[in-house]
């Protein structure tokens, strides 16, 4: 019996080691690619077009490197690491909200018919999700080794709930009114959507299965999934920033007469029963 238990512990230990190794590999890759993303944005002068996203990518690369340094530095402890993560994610969340709002405002700005209404609805939707997130926080307070970690976990979930809600609204609103997306703006929103939705799902599931006082396999797994998703989001952003923006195609040239007639018939069909 003891031998079986011993084997189980060793297997569990090696699994945790593998998860930890995979997580750190993904983490390194993600931070490196974030830096590449920032450099791409600067060299291609995309910061003029997307200043907030440029700031965001700069922050995630610098903060990512700083958190890595804190993780491996000998003179830092767990509390320092926690503070570094909290500051990094806090600023990232603020920038994330700013990007979502800016993207929405940019989309509706060109359409005066819905500009005012859209902004009011956006604010109402945000308020609704704030209330929803507060209710979730009240119903399910976070698990953690300390009050601070619990608070961080709940805050993180609240932020992701809000971002998911705002992004769902942004996509549905633009989809319903057929507002045109430039491909890079869509890529930025897509990356944020992937990041916030997976992070929220992982946080929600993790909060149900995690134990309060131990650093278990689920912690490594959650970390691995979160960083993998982050890596995917960075790859999506890189793809959209590197891909050429399709130029708008206002075609010109004379219209053949038969095409005009077809167009007119189509209009007649609209106007007459």
């Amino acid at each position: 019996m003891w031998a079986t238990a011993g084997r189980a512990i060793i297997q569990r230990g090696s699994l945790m080691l593998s998860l930890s190794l995979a997580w750190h590999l993904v983490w390194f890759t993600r931070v490196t690619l974030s830096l590449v993303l920032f450099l791409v944005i600067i060299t291609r002068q995309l910061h003029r077009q997307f200043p907030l996203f440029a700031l965001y990518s700069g922050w995630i690369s610098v903060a990512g490197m700083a958190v890595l340094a804190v993780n491996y530095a000998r003179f830092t402890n767990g509390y320092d690491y926690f503070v570094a993560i909290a500051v990094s994610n806090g600023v990232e969340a603020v920038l994330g909200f700013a990007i979502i709002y800016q993207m929405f405002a940019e989309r509706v700005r060109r359409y005066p018919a819905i500009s005012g209404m859209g902004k009011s609805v956006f604010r109402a939707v945000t308020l609704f999700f704030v209330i929803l997130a507060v209710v979730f926080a009240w119903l399910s307070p976070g698990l953690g080794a300390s009050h601070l970690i619990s608070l961080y976990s709940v805050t993180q979930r609240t932020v992701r709930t809000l971002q998911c809600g705002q992004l769902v609204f942004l996509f549905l609103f633009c989809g319903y009114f057929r507002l045109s997306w430039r491909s890079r703006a869509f890529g930025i929103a897509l990356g944020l959507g992937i990041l916030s939705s997976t992070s929220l799902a992982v946080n929600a599931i993790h909060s149900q299965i995690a134990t309060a006082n131990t650093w278990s396999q689920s912690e490594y797994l959650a970390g691995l999934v979160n960083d993998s998703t982050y890596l995917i989001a960075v790859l999506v952003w890189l793809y959209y920033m590197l891909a050429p923006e399709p130029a708008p195609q206002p075609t010109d040239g004379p219209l053949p007469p038969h095409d005009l007639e077809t167009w007119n018939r189509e209009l007649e069909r609209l106007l007459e029963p």
Partner: protein
Amino acid sequence: MTLAIILAILALSVPVGIRLAKGRSVAPRIAQIRSVDLRAFRNLMDPEEEQYLRRHLPPADFRRIQRQRLRAAVEYINCAAFNAAVLTHFAEAARRSPDPVTAQAAAKLIDNAIRLRSYAFRAIPKLYLAMVFPGRGVSPARVAESYELMTRQVVLLGLQYPTGEIPRAL
């Protein structure tokens, strides 16, 4: 666990939203525009017509007929909103025209198409509410007016935009 499920659903709705935002706007064709009978729609929404039916039909029959009329009106509005969406796509291309007159006409068409979809979004729940309470008067007349204005601008755009994008779709 319930909370986890709710949050997971919310998280999953992001990719669905993305799909709707991107997928539905993929290359509509002019041929997709459906015929919308504005006069029939106005008849369905006419309060005098409603009063006439109310006076001449037994209450149960009136409620049944009125529900059918409202259902038909919803269909009309859905069609008009769909047409507005298709026209928006083509007007977006026209808005980039170097000709300022064409670009202006296209911008106006987009404005009206979006307004129509906005009215439709608000009018349809109103009509469904009226189906539950058939005696309640309802008149989404602004939808009809907006649709008429939009189709007038389509004529203007069609005459002013003799370019390749629209005819190729035809």
